[in-house]
């Protein structure tokens, strides 16, 4: 079997399973999976930068929030319909990631992490500061009537599932195509050895900037869809914690793999959901998982799969 066929089977298979699951899952897990697919799209966005380009950002909540507020504010204050509002969210993500990329890419390594962290923190505080428009910490509701997109009521569970699935499928297929394209190959080359990529004559800065913008825009798209599907826009989504989450999911699932972000998000969601029934300190589990991962499985779950079973897993 050729590598391409195998890859199509694995990823296509995942999508077919996810599509089919909506008909059999009980209501609670049906709702959870819709949520997980949106969050996994956020993780996919993060992974483009972290997993494939080798740049660790600690400020992705800024992009997620840019999408969410770009969408939410245009609905709330401009009375936009969902489709243009989504577009506004995506454009907001594109612009913000462009600006942040130009600035932050002047640094590298630890400094890059801290610069992105600081920009995200400034973004979070700006949401609070602009409380007159954003209603700050408290956030605001996107009413059910404002969430009917081209006649489809997105608050309906099956529509919501389908919307989450569509977003996830688009992100999955797009990144799959991306990493196999010549452009994606250069990103991987930069991750492996930036100096060599420079010496081979690639404009490394331009490609890294493109990676930041692709990553940021996917994250923003996930944020906009999240706000639209679940009807709430609030500052907590811009906080540091939401920058840490995608890192956690991607590390757990496997950085630099296409299915890793989904596996990690799924695993972590249920880990927290189940452990919250045992202890109020459920973030403890997240901490232990993080430490254990760095110690024992830095490649994550899909990374282990790649190591043990199929070396060609994209």
């Amino acid at each position: 079997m050729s590598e391409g066929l195998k890859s199509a089977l694995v990823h296509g298979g995942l999508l077919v399973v996810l599509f089919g699951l909506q008909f059999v899952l009980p209501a609670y897990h049906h709702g959870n999976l819709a949520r997980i697919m949106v969050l996994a799209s956020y993780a996919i966005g993060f992974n483009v930068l972290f997993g494939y380009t080798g740049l660790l950002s600690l400020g992705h909540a800024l992009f997620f929030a840019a999408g969410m507020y770009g969408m939410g504010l245009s609905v709330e204050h401009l009375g936009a319909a969902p489709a243009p509002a989504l577009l506004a969210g995506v454009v907001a993500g594109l612009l913000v990631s462009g600006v942040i990329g130009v600035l932050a890419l002047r640094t590298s390594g630890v400094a890059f992490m801290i610069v992105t962290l600081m920009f995200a923190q400034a973004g979070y505080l700006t949401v609070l500061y602009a409380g007159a428009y954003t209603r700050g910490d408290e956030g605001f509701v996107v009413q059910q009537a404002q969430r009917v997109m081209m006649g489809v009521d997105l608050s309906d569970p099956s529509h919501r599932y389908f919307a989450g699935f569509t977003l996830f499928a688009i992100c999955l297929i797009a990144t799959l195509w991306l990493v196999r394209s010549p452009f994606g190959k250069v990103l991987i080359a930069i991750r492996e050895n930036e100096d060599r990529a420079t010496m081979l004559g690639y404009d490394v800065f331009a490609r890294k900037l493109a990676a930041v913008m692709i990553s940021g825009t996917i994250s923003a798209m996930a944020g906009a869809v999240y706000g639209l599907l679940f009807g709430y826009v609030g500052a907590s989504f811009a906080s540091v914690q939401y920058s840490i989450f995608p890192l956690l999911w991607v590390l757990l699932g496997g950085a630099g793999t296409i299915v890793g972000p989904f596996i990690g998000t799924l695993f972590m969601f249920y880990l927290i959901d189940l452990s919250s029934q045992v202890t109020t300190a459920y973030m403890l589990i997240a901490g232990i998982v993080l430490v254990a991962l760095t110690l024992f499985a830095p490649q994550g779950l899909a990374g282990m799969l790649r190591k043990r079973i199929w070396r060609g897993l994209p």
Partner: protein
Amino acid sequence: MTTGIVKQSGTTRRGAIKTLAAGAAVGSLPLWARYTQAQTSEPIRIGFQVHRTGIGAAYGRWYDRTTTAAVQRINDAGGINGRMVEVIAEDDGTDPKRGAEVVEKFASQHNCDIGFGTLFSHVVIGSAPRAGELKLPYFVVSEGHHVASGMLNRYTLQPGITDVKSQVQAMAPFIAGNLGKKVTMIYPDYGFGYDHRDNLKPAIEAQGGEVVGMIAIPPSETSFTKYFPKIPRETEVVYHVMVGPAVLTFVKELGEFFGPSRPEIFGFIDSLEAVDMASPGLEFLEGTYFWEGMPRYAQPDQTGHDKLYRAAVGVDDNGASVSDPKDVSTYAHMFGCWETLYVIKAGMETAGYQGPADRAKLIEAVEAMRHMPLSDEHPQGAKLFNGKTHQVFGPQYISKVTDGKLLVVHTTSIEDTMYPDEVDYTSQAF
């Protein structure tokens, strides 16, 4: 997580109900027992969204205790419609995203009949859309103005606690009339604080007073002295309200700032909720005034209802836990859980509530409520419910710190707290 105590007592009570139900065929029985005939002995499940962690934790713990006590009392008296009440408590981490997930969990996984008990505004606002979509009646105990402002939906109600708008508005006549006309307000820089900011100014101006200073403090702030010089010199009354883990620092530093020559001080008890009035550094509060939702200290004219409620929850005459005098309750807010549960009970009984299919009937039954007299079920005071805005109105208490205790000096009337409707939820479809 299921609250163990409630569940256990539920099991034994359920046995008793079955016995009684069997006898119903022969004798005349009270109303509730007749319902059991037609019903399975499945308990009524109340999903309790509780702030066990995060900044709301001090409130959450006492909301939990009050809820447990109220449910215990309801079950001891035979439950609702002859069915026991079971509380399914889930921590929301005082986080809106987790809050929404918890509501989904109640509706879809735990098969709860209703959701209940949320306090912090951002969690309510984050969760209410999901409750509306899942058609889960969602009874919040939040005192935010978000319900009556029309921001939420037909499934979200606040029948057990008054909102900040009416609390603030009812304070203005007392402040302007007794303490001074020039007011400076200090409030947290987020939603809850804005409810104070937006409502106090017009209310004070309506009394011929003036708000001369407005000082917003970020909710994460831990040191406060640097803000106090912004208090204008001409200030006659400092109006303060603060929430979060740093409230004690806030009040202490306020005292250190003024030293012996302070203006009149009027605070919302939120600034000292769950804090011991005898904490070192709070001596300066002697002679200052506080809004209280319900008097923390047992008053000389304590009603029998307050006595019963206090004992049931396990609170002593100083407002602290009977088992630990240092563990001070959130007395001014937590009664809302007790009263809301009794509203739920009354609503379910009027609606003849059988199961999730009757959820709309339950909402309509609650919307039809009007007067709630002072009673064991409403120990905080007589209330008036507005079915259109889904918001309850009731008396407010103003207490003066006297010998280190809070002594009620004024009780507002319900009329003082009323304002024109801003929404009619009954016009929304189910």
